[in-house]
């Protein structure tokens, strides 16, 4: 589904990603961990198409298409979803209005008819149940006045609405209390199918108790320096990154 090869990217002339290789197949869950400043969020942003970053080398293929040549909105319409670490507030724009446009743009891209008002409302109702998002929030302005937990739930709600092929969740667990973490993580698990894939970027093993990864990667200085199965996350939780970093820095 996603094939990233030797990806280099920089911002303001500073190289952040220095040769990423990553392959994600349908049905898989990957976790990307690593110390602060290692490039995790940059990787997510570059794959999503944030124009702030410049790709200087390498390639990325998504569903057989050249990801890097597409603008951000086309990547989204093709089925790439980025759950933001800091979801943005959009005053005066209701969730319903926003999601209706988003869902119908995606349908248009796929050559499908737009949803009728009734179909759309039904979809909203169904999907808000996935993350126990109250209907009060879906009628409010996007993220405006939402608590940290509500914002993250709202990201997963939008993911449910858009039904992406590949979801990249950038520290969706940060700032969540235990209950919100459970709801968000359970939501992600419910949405997982053999046809889609999820990449979770996280600092903490606790998220991976709910979302069990097939592969765990450690990102350091803009490269994936180590990959393993879910036991790697447990070892990192116990021992930290030093054993890997020291090895790499040698």
């Amino acid at each position, binding site marked *: 589904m996603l094939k990233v090869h030797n990806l280099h990217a920089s911002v303001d002339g500073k190289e952040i990603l220095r040769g990423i290789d990553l392959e994600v197949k349908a049905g898989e869950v990957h976790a990307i961990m690593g110390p602060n400043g290692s490039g995790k969020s940059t990787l997510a942003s570059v794959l*999503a*198409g*944030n124009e702030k970053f410049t790709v200087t080398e390498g390639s990325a293929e998504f569903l057989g298409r050249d990801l890097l040549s597409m*603008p*951000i*909105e086309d990547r*989204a*319409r093709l089925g790439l*979803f*980025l759950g*933001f670490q800091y*979801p*943005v*507030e*959009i*005053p*005066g*724009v209701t969730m319903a*209005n*926003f*999601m209706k*446009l*988003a869902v119908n*743009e*995606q349908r248009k*891209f796929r050559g499908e008819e737009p949803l009728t008002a009734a179909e759309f409302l039904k979809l909203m109702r169904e999907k808000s149940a996935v993350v126990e998002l109250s209907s009060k929030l879906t009628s409010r*302005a996007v993220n405006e006045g939402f608590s940290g937990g509500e914002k993250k739930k709202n990201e997963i709600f*939008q993911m449910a609405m*858009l039904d992406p092929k590949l979801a990249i969740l950038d520290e969706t667990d940060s700032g969540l209390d235990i209950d919100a973490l459970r709801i968000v993580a359970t939501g992600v698990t419910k949405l997982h199918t053999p046809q889609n894939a999820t990449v979770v970027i996280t600092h903490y093993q606790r998220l991976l108790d709910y979302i069990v990864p097939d592969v765990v990667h450690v990102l350091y200085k803009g490269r994936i320096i180590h990959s393993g199965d879910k036991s790697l996350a447990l070892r990192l939780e116990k021992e930290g990154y030093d054993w890997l970093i020291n090895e790499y820095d040698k």
Partner: protein
Amino acid sequence: METILDIIRGFRAADGEVLRIDGAVAEPFAAVDPRKLRVEAAAGASARVVVVHTAPDLSVLEVELAEGAQLELTELFTAEAFAEVSVKQAARSRCRLTTVQLSSANASYRIDLDGADAENELGGVFLAAGSEHCVVKLRTGHNVADCRSNSYVKGVAGGQAVGEFSGLVYVAPDAQRTDARQQSRNILLSETARITTQPQLEIYADDVKCSHGATVGQMDAEAILYMRQRGLSESQARRLQIEGFVGDVVTRCGIEPLCGAIMELASAKMEKL
């Protein structure tokens, strides 16, 4: 625009020079391009009046509300008109004014709160594109004690457009317990667009609550990026953000389906900003 004129044809025509209102009138009145119109609401009367400017012209509108009268006045500009609006309010009267400029326009409002417990609320929007020039001038006079006013004007300018807001809240020496609020909020969409805003307070009483504020900002690039990540095009994301910014004012007139039609016209304009 045709939709709006069609809707208005269904309203009562206010085509004379004086419109006298007695009692509660449910059906809205409408005037298209009035040169001079005087609205007189008798004590306790209530009505809604819509004024549409579709041609470049001079327009004078005088509103006088007797004790306890209530008026909702909605003004829409789709052509460069010069409009002078004066509103005189007696005790316990309520006036809710909405002005929407979708083209170059120059509108000045003089509000006089002349009787205790009078209340005025003014919401304004201008969307200036290309080389358009939108001007909103406001003077709210608290001439006696115990009146309330709340004004908020939102401006958006793109291209080489120019927007101007000047607002003065005047509080007379005896106008104690005045509650006056004024807000001017603006967004510039291009490097070459210009908006000047000049909020002013002139207060001669000592027991008052007055607040004013003015901001000029830009589009929120983070929000645009966020919306595009969900599949919206850049122009859709920009339009949605502008709609979110001005929507509450555009749709506050409360007369359906007119409100919806004005919003549609405004949305079409936003695509061009």
